[in-house]
């Protein structure tokens, strides 16, 4: 697709969104969703996707039964949330709680996207919400996971998104528990 024709780009993205909304085929929906999520990786498209309300579309996917929808939607949000303006839109739509729920997803890609998205959503205003004990304990568990990617992301989260004191408190709370109550690690 040529990069110089901006209106055609917008129209193409619009036709993807339209197909997603109109089609009954799950398979077609998955393909289009993946397309949109991949387009969200390129900063050139972020403004158009915002105008087409695609951040909200992605957020809607997080509560779907179809796990591909969840994974692709979460991936799209991971890509979009890097952009400051998209971040605002996601926050205004209650993104933090929706994304936090994805931390307990069984698919690793979904969880990785969720952790990264939460880091992207961390601003001075949202930091208290993002570094809640529940989330920190989850990250502590992730930092001991077998998956190197998950370990690394969790480590970066704990180092960058909260204070050492908060991490210590969360650690104490985890150790105090007898049973492994909490967010299970995802399976591959």
């Amino acid at each position, binding site marked *: 697709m040529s*990069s110089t024709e901006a209106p055609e780009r917008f129209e193409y993205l619009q036709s993807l969104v339209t197909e997603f909304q109109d089609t009954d085929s799950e398979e077609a929906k998955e393909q289009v969703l*993946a397309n949109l999520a991949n387009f969200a990786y390129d900063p050139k498209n972020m*403004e158009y996707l915002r105008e087409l309300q695609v951040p909200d579309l992605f957020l809607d996917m997080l509560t779907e039964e179809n796990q591909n929808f969840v994974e692709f939607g979460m991936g799209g949000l991971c*890509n979009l949330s890097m952009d400051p*303006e998209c971040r605002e839109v996601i926050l205004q739509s209650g993104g933090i709680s929706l994304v936090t729920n994805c931390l307990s997803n069984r698919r690793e890609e979904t969880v990785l*996207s969720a952790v*990264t998205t939460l880091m992207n959503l961390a601003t001075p205003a949202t930091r208290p919400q993002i570094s809640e004990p529940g989330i920190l304990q989850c990250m502590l568990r992730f930092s001991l996971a077998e998956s190197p*990617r998950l370990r*690394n992301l969790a480590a970066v989260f704990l180092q*960058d998104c909260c204070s050492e004191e908060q991490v210590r408190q969360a650690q104490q709370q985890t150790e105090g528990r007898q049973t492994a109550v909490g967010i299970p690690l995802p399976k591959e």
Partner: protein
Amino acid sequence: MHFLTNMAAPVNNRSDCWRVPEVYKHHEQQRVCISRPKYREGRKAKAVKVYTINLESRYLMVQGVPAIGVMTELIQLCALYGSVEEYRPLDEYPAEEFTEVYLVKFQKLTSARAAKRNMDEKSFYGGVLHVCYVPEYETVEDTRLKLQDRRSYIARAARSRAKQREKTEATQESLVLSEAPTSSDKISTSRDVTSRNEDTGEALSLSHYSEFPPLPLPPQEHCSFRQKSHRRLVPTEDKMGTLHNAFYNVEQQQVDSLSSNPTTSNREQGTESRLGPNPGSGVRFIPRITNLESRKRKVEESGEPAANVSGENEPLIGPKLPEAAKLDMEDESLNTTVGLIRSTMKQVGSVPDLKTAKKKAKPRRRI
């Protein structure tokens, strides 16, 4: 052999931490999607997969390398896309018979991206390469830097888009208000719009690099102006993710704005007669820069107000020529690249020809 020394070490101290690395699901090639409607069918059939920053990495794994001792050639090929920091064979990774697997760490993610795009599914010495990202080889610091780089790139892109938008809006306003818009305003608007849409890579100023070949710069001993000129070597990447030192010359910008002047037609002859060849160089080609500098000096000496030869704030007259690519021809890495290409060509050429290499001189009929 070059070995990777700072791999992510397993956190647990179990005795089996030296086990065979897991064949992660995201390394496997997925089945290609065949049911896409025409309007969204790409040029190449692809699987349904979403790429996020977590799947990408400056660590690449190359599978399917024929086990015939071509590691050096493989790394040379990788180096065409950007600096390779480290590499090693992954003996412990399951490989098809008669093939090897390599881990290659690039200095930049954009280089790895370009290498993957260009090398995946390509044939190489009789085999087919399968190239994929291997972010599990990152250290925590690698991951953090990757995310930070990505965020600042997106933020930069957003800022420049906002600036372009403001510029376009401001210019459009002035176009609406003024009755006779100057040609330069129109030109700058259209350039803004195209450059906004064309730029994909991080080095926004190099958007024209892939379209126009660089002009050869004169050899070093020839031009004293180069020492005077204010320049900075900026390590940058072109769209291909190839790292090079871009020659960023403040005066160069002046020259480029002046290059729209059509009086440089017979520069070689003209300047030779004016300046004469520099002593001790024996090089005939006089650069345009010197020509314009000398003209500038002459104008300043004569005290004439110059419409063309002044500063950067003069309005452009006529279409603006694209800036010559800012490439430092003295950089050693270019010789390395040329050397690599030459040696590859030599190897290709070393396959015996069926025809004789030399053409026999045909007997010419003299009339």
